[in-house]
């Protein structure tokens, strides 16, 4: 029956199984790419080895100049955010992501933001909602790919590119997934994750993308730490601002948030912590907020100071404060089935630790001799960082190259080659997710899987379609046999329906448009499904309302009550009136009848709770009609 407000649950088995299947297929592609990369690496290595041998060399070249190890700050931020991206990618594998992310995470995050933010976010939500399987799978591989890329490409162009990829994807997630981190929402607070966890991923990516010499002086570290300090001071002001709901315990924002987080499905231990803290906040909300304000202001002031001990003290205090907030307010961030990341505290702490290291732990240049013994610790420097005539780093401890003085190809080291191939493989992982998503994103119609998830897969049949002769919207008699030679999409619509029928009519209209020239071989037929309002005036007005009047292959048929009842019965359509102001209840069904007049498919047409499902049904109907064209 129409309009009963059915919605898909996040664990819908059709969607979940399609998601897992997509992940599996993409994993196979990735393994294939990895195998090709491994083979490619071996082939190149062999060719290179032969070339070197021809030049009388016994090993791959070693770096010809002194190098510095990767700055500790850069290594920390790179590996730290690589780990976070990988964790986020793994979290995206959760079954609830395709359907639950937008409704459970994105839309609530944008709910209190201004309408323009919601508008921006909704454009992303629409793409995700239209293509939930591709989108969720894309998020998995893009995030895993970026994480792996950051790990396997420690230095050089590949590494900086990984940083840029991290910034790019981070911005996408920050805008569309986190609604700009809620910075435009009225309840903005550091405690709930402002200015958005992924903004710190962007900062991390930006640091990795910087030229390495940026880490050679304390300037970068000072900027990071001071910016962090100013941010925390600002957050302290915001936290202290009266009238924002943080000074009150009972019914205050903080206790509401904590109580809400306690409702998230999670181990009992965590929920009991949250419950206890929530009770504490309810009882002592003013005191808790005072503590937070003082702590944020204190830490901010320490970070703004230039003295190492004070900054270190501030950093330690911040890490402790962050961990407390992470556990007691943010509830670790990734629980509940649609948690996408560990929220803001860990990445923010990582950025500040990076700032501290960049400020006080500057890299020390290595001499050539030291470099040989530094071995694996001195990770590879890319082509861009190598000076003219320098070898592009090879395995530590190998004999120095002496005769490799040709083009860059002759100076490629084995480890550089290996890491470049690994970076290419990581990029391939990103692309395996991003490419199908990009293709899907330009398709404004939702995938048919949504309609199938809601209504089940079309029921294939092969029986003669029950004949009928009725009157079209122009008063002309039309029989099913007249339409022989065309594929017929048949449905049942109430001309005075307020909800589903107009949507179903739009699905048919959309399908007609998407058929293009092939629509000449297809007729779209609706039979009135209202025993009271069934005159031609109503079918014609319905057509007017739905913009169907210009479709030459659209027939909205009606007739006497007995004639209609016969058609309803023959096609198994139930129609009944409901008392006291409700619309007529009828089955939402459609049938595909082939050009020989045989009924081939029966589909449930319930357009679902949102517009997304309507275009999804149109995709499904299109694919079903397509099967019987030219047969």
């Amino acid at each position, binding site marked *: *029956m129409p*309009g*009963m*407000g059915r919605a898909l649950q996040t664990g819908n088995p059709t969607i979940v199984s399609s998601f897992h299947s997509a992940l599996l297929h993409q994993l196979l592609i990735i393994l294939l790419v990895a195998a090709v990369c491994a083979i490619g690496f071996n082939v190149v290595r062999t060719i290179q080895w032969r070339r070197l041998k021809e030049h009388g060399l016994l090993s791959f070249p070693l770096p010809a100049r002194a190098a510095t190890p990767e700055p500790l700050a850069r290594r920390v931020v790179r590996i730290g955010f690589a780990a976070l991206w990988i964790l986020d990618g793994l979290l995206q594998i959760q079954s609830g992501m395709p359907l639950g992310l937008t409704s459970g995470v994105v839309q609530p995050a944008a709910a*209190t933001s201004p309408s323009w933010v919601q508008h921006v976010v909704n454009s992303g939500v629409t793409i995700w909602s239209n293509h939930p399987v591709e989108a969720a799978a894309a998020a998995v591989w893009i995030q895993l790919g970026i994480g792996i890329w950051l790990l396997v490409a420690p230095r050089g162009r590949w590494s900086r590119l990984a940083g840029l990829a991290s910034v790019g994807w981070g911005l996408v997630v920050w805008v569309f997934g986190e609604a700009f981190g809620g*910075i*435009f929402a*009225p309840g*903005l607070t550091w405690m709930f994750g402002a200015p958005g966890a992924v903004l710190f991923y962007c900062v991390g990516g930006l640091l990795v993308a910087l030229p390495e010499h940026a880490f050679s002086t304390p300037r970068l570290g000072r900027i990071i730490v*001071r910016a962090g300090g*100013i*941010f925390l*001071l*600002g*957050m302290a*002001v*915001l936290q202290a*601002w009266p009238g*924002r709901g943080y000074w009150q315990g009972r019914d205050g924002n903080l206790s509401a948030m904590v109580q809400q987080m306690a409702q998230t499905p999670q181990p009992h231990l965590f929920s009991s912590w949250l419950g206890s803290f929530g009770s504490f906040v309810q009882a002592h909300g003013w005191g808790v907020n005072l503590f937070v304000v003082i702590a944020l202001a204190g830490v901010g002031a320490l970070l*703004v100071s230039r003295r190492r001990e004070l900054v270190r003290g501030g950093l330690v205090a911040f890490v402790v404060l962050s961990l407390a907030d992470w556990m007691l307010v943010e509830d670790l961030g990734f629980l509940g089935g649609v948690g996408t990341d560990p929220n803001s505290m860990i990445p923010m702490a990582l950025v500040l630790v990076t700032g501290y290291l960049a400020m006080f732990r500057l890299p020390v240049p290595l001499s050539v001799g030291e470099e040989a013994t530094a071995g694996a610790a001195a990770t590879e420097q890319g082509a861009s960082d190598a000076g003219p005539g320098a070898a592009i780093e090879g395995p530590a401890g190998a004999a120095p190259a002496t005769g490799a003085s040709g083009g860059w190809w002759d100076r490629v080291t084995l480890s550089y080659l290996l890491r470049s191939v690994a970076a290419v493989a990581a990029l391939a992982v990103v692309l395996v997710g991003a490419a199908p998503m990009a293709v899907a994103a330009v398709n404004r119609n939702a995938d048919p899987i949504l309609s199938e998830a809601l209504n089940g897969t079309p029921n294939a049949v092969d029986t003669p379609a029950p004949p009928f002769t009725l009157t079209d919207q122009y008063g002309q008699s039309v029989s099913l046999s007249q339409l022989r030679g065309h594929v017929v999409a048949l449905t049942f619509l109430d001309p*005075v*329906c*307020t*909800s589903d*029928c*107009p*949507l179903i009519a739009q699905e048919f209209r959309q399908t007609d448009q998407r058929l293009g020239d092939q629509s000449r071989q297809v007729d779209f037929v609706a039979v009135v499904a*209202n*025993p*009271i*309002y*069934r*005159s031609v*005036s*109503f079918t014609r*007005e319905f057509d007017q*309302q739905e913009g169907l009047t210009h479709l030459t292959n659209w027939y909205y048929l009606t007739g006497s009550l007995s004639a209609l009842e016969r058609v309803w019965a023959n096609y198994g359509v139930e129609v009944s*009136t*409901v*008392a*006291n*102001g*409700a*619309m*007529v*209840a009828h089955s939402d069904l459609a049938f595909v009848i082939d050009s020989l007049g045989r009924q081939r498919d029966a589909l449930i047409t319930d357009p679902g709770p949102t517009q997304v499902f309507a275009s999804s049904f149109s995709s499904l109907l299109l694919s079903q009609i397509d099967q019987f064209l030219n047969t």
Partner: protein
Amino acid sequence: MSLQHRRRAAAGRLRGIVLVAFSFFAVLAASGGSAAAASDLPLPSAIETPADSWVVLPMGQTGSLVNTFWQLLRAAPGSSQWSVVTPQGVADNGGLVAAAGVTTASTTVGFLPSQSLRFSPLSVTTDAGRTWSPAFLPGALAARPDALASGPGRSLAIVGSAVLQQPSNSPSWSRLVTLAALQRLAPQCAATALDAVAMTPTGAILVGAACHGHLGLFSASGGKWRLDGAPLPGEWRDASTTILRLQASNTQTTAVATATKGSHHALFALSQSRSGGWHASAPLPIGAGATVLASAVDFGGALSVLVGSKESESVDQITPAGSWVTLPAPPRGAVGLAWVVPATTSFGATTLDAFTVVGGTDLHVFALTPGGGKWAGAQTLQVPLPYGSSS
């Protein structure tokens, strides 16, 4: 630049950054939400003919438009026993507009569009709501209590910015007059919307329009339109006006006008003289935060309105002398009023009923006692509603 200068400049930059950052956070802190817009709902209304009393009431989850199911109730003469006679076949969560025939026993109900439906199916009964026949109206009926009228030889309906007419012997509707035509006819009225239509037993057509400075009451005779409404008296002379109700019967033609001047609002009861001119009652001031919730018009010209605010509701009735009298406070949560026709065998006057809805589906009817001293419970009706069937 000296080291001192550099330090001073750096300190200045830092102060600037801090200032900008603090300003940003301050703006964020001060930002707030926005108020919700009011919706334009048809008022619950009642009409009375010598044969029946009809009332349109909202029931169900009235906080949710989709699950507000409007009901049409009818009472026989002399009885405060109401029965639900809502016509079937269309979702009525957009609202209902009812019009009783002035000279016939027919009653027409129009379904206001809701959700994706953008035109108004009609339903007509000639047997006091026992059976209904569908009727067609091209377009969306205006969301006004008297947007439909039925009289000798034709029916009228306000659709958009036009009054449509349908001859009794034809299924087709045609345009009778447009808002633009009325604006040209009476520029002094500056009509902005069509509010109400009525037909007198002699077939005269009346149209009410929202105006500025005048009462927007027009009539047509011999195909010619004229403005009958005059400026409101006294301090309301320059007010913006709307015609909330417009009803004609054998004995009386009655209207209710709202007047708005700045933040002040008032209601006027209007009665038409034999010459066609309109006489306005004393104003009934509507306090700040209060709105007219419902209205009931008796075929003899008696008129009552239900005015509600957050705190309470009140019922006011116009007296024959043209002044307003406040009746005993209606039951808490009253949603509608209706006059009940006296039984033909009795010599009694019309009596007034008030309606409350409890839990969305329990309708309670209260009758004003003959002395007008209090409201007494008269009937309780259970109206099962199919929630979700219109969403």
